């Protein structure tokens, strides 16, 4: 299902079907330039990896700018090496394995990560390769094994704690908030906590209320932690590696429905920046900010919007704490309209914080109030139809953009 979405948005639309209405006085730009830009943009998205390989082609091995900076560089053809195709969970595993190979202090702990191979197969095969201590199967005791990971990190180990589902980490909230986030500060800088806490969250396929939680909204206030959300195999691997190498505690949010996404990623080693967002599609009319699974709903909506003649700029914010206000700001200054599409609930979600942040910093550049599309403030119901109505659907995104750009 997720793969279908990916292929759907990946397909290019022929130029002739791009229709737009010149009578829309609020839209900037003349006709011809619009068309050219639109064609560039479609091609850009057509092959996911081409725009993102700019960093690779510059021989900077360790960090890559995943933001498609200039329009012309987008037309760079296929990368020097063919790369290899894999699924998102395999990309995570590859990143993890490379880091474990590289640094003996990197270790993994969590429920069923060892012998079982991980409930989403992210750690499959690692226990056989690195042993039972380095890929540790813990009992079902989130509070204490997260605490254990933090204690180990205080001494210099670099543990990756897996929450089988992010929702279970609520049991470890005290450890994450007080010890993970604050120890560096309260010890006056004596202790660093280079821990990575990762796991899948978000609304899945009828998993029920307790297994469909969005913990990013609960954790976002904790000082001292960083939060990132991956959405493609490319950024999953890059963010995993960056999170492991970071000396700060990082929470990496994965999504239950995105593990089987397939993409071709480079063979060369790359690490992404934890604080940067990803420009998925450049545009002029409206900035759509999103992350994780909603990126795909947005891209699906973007297809419809482009057919209707709109030119949305889509940014996958990736970094949930801190926000990449640089990229977001530049986009707002260009388009003057913002739609936030998130999976968190309406109250107190990432979208709420982002709305406040953009309003505070870029108020003068906004032509209209920010529209924030979030999930409903309800526990996620089991019934399929009800569950679909809790999260934001592409049709709603299209409607919101049309409303905003009127």
């Amino acid at each position, binding site marked *: 299902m997720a793969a279908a979405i990916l292929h759907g948005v990946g397909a290019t639309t022929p130029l002739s079907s791009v229709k737009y209405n010149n009578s829309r006085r609020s839209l900037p730009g003349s006709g011809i330039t619009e068309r050219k830009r639109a064609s560039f943009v479609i091609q850009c998205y057509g092959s996911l990896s081409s725009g993102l390989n700019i960093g690779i082609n510059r021989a900077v091995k360790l960090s890559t700018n995943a933001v498609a900076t200039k329009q012309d560089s987008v037309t760079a053809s296929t990368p020097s090496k063919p790369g290899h195709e894999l699924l998102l969970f395999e990309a995570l595993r590859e990143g993890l394995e490379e880091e474990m190979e590289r640094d003996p202090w990197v270790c993994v702990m969590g429920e069923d990560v060892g012998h079982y191979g991980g409930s989403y197969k992210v750690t499959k095969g690692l226990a056989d390769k690195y042993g039972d201590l380095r890929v540790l199967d813990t009992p079902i*005791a989130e509070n204490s094994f997260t605490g254990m990971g933090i204690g180990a990190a205080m001494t210099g180990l670099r543990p990756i704690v897996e929450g089988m589902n992010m929702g279970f980490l609520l049991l470890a909230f005290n450890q994450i908030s007080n010890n993970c986030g604050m120890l560096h500060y309260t010890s006056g800088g004596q202790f660093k906590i280079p821990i990575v806490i990762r796991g899948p969250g978000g609304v899945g396929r009828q998993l029920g209320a307790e297994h469909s939680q969005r913990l990013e909204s609960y954790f976002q206030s904790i000082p001292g932690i960083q939060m990132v959300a991956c959405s493609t195999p490319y950024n999953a691997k890059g963010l995993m590696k960056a999170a492991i190498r970071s000396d*700060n505690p990082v929470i990496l949010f994965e999504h239950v429905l995105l593990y089987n996404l397939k993409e071709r990623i480079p063979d060369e080693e790359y690490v992404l920046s934890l604080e940067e967002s990803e420009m998925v599609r450049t545009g002029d009319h409206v900035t759509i900010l999103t992350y994780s699974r909603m990126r795909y709903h947005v891209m699906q909506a973007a297809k419809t919007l482009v057919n209707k003649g709109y030119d949305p700029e889509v940014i996958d914010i990736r970094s949930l704490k801190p926000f990449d206000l640089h990229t977001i700001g530049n986009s707002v200054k260009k388009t003057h309209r913002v739609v936030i599409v998130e999976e968190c609930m309406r109250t107190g979600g990432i979208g709420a914080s982002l709305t406040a942040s953009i309003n505070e910093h870029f108020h003068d550049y906004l032509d209209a109030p920010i529209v924030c599309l979030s999930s409903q403030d309800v526990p996620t119901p089991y019934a399929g139809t009800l569950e679909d109505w809790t999260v934001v659907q592409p049709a709603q995104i299209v409607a919101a953009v049309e409303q905003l750009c009127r």
Partner: protein
Amino acid sequence: MAQLIRRAAALNKSLPAASFAARGLATASTSPITVETSLPFTGHNIDPPSRSVETSPQELLTFFRDMALMRRMEIAADSLYKAKLIRGFCHLYDGQEAVCVGMEAAINRKDCIITAYRDHCIFLGRGGTLLEAFAELMGRKDGCSKGKGGSMHFYKKEGGFYGGHGIVGAQVPLGCGLAFAQKYSKDESVTFAMYGDGAANQGQLFEALNMAALWDLPAILVCENNHYGMGTAEWRAAKSPAYYKRGDYVPGLKVDGMDALAVKQACKFAKEHALKNGPIILEMDTYRYHGHSMSDPGSTYRTRDEISGVRQERDPIERIRKLVLAHDLATEKELKDTEKEVRKEVDEAIAQAKESPMPDPSELFSNVYAKGLGTEHKTGTLQITYNYLLLALKDLVAFFLVVFIRSRQKRSENCTSMSENINNDSTCQDPFVD
């Protein structure tokens, strides 16, 4: 105890005064003295160690001085709090000094200690200075946590002191994490994770204990049982106040926590056990004279008679004083002089700490993240190579040590059992597969 007092009185009468004055505390010898602990140890699933403790004049005098220093520091902190120089929470350790002093005598700085919020004296024991302590209590720049932690967040990384934690019980899983790291790096050291009788009812403690036992982590859980969880007496909070037995499959030892030598013996025993067999629980039967914190008078849930009774009969400093006098290691006057010295030291440290400035406003935002954010690659290639080399070196040294020891051992009849031992020593049982 009465015997000791009589002996001390007799000794004092017999020797001339001159020889006392000539003997300085600094020149105390390290010749061994054997002392019996006041009470026997009680074991749970384990044979308790012997009551006879090896000590030396130097050690006893050091105990006295250290405990006097700690006591003085805590009393001074009391006054500073009442003078509103220390704010917020201030949990004082006076009465419990024997636990931390006895523990330090049994371990080294590679071993880790982690405790809750009653951490001032343990910080001192781990190498913290009086200035750092007072400055931190007063929120000044020269504090051990730069004034940003406060009373409950003392840390000393070089001394192996991991704090200093405000949330009851949360330090125990952290302590198991420290032990995990010690096992991971195979550095033959242990972690003492301390908690109180109140925290003993926390679920995360049992979770951590289960994991420590499962993986044979070198973790020693030390319950400082001062019989009150703030205002609630232990019998009102715990169905089974025998905290040393609550580990069930994990062995435990009950220790008289007011006797520094008993504590030393128990910690030594526990360290040996933890390195070989995994976790053990030590219950230190101790007492705090102050209330739970400075905002608790400490007399609403216990009688003043109880407090003064313990002070008279079980005070840890008095016990060492009597021992020192009984063994004729110093005179009354010399001990009093030590106390005066210690008082002066504390007063000087307070004066110095008062001079220390408040933290700079920019400190509000420093140390939130480690050196800015994210992707700076701290673990460069050089560091990684170094890490690998370190691990390899440790293994190499261990291997040669084993070979050396084995070659010196007498050949016994059970040649097969020896070869079995060699196999078990190396990688078979060790889950850390290189």
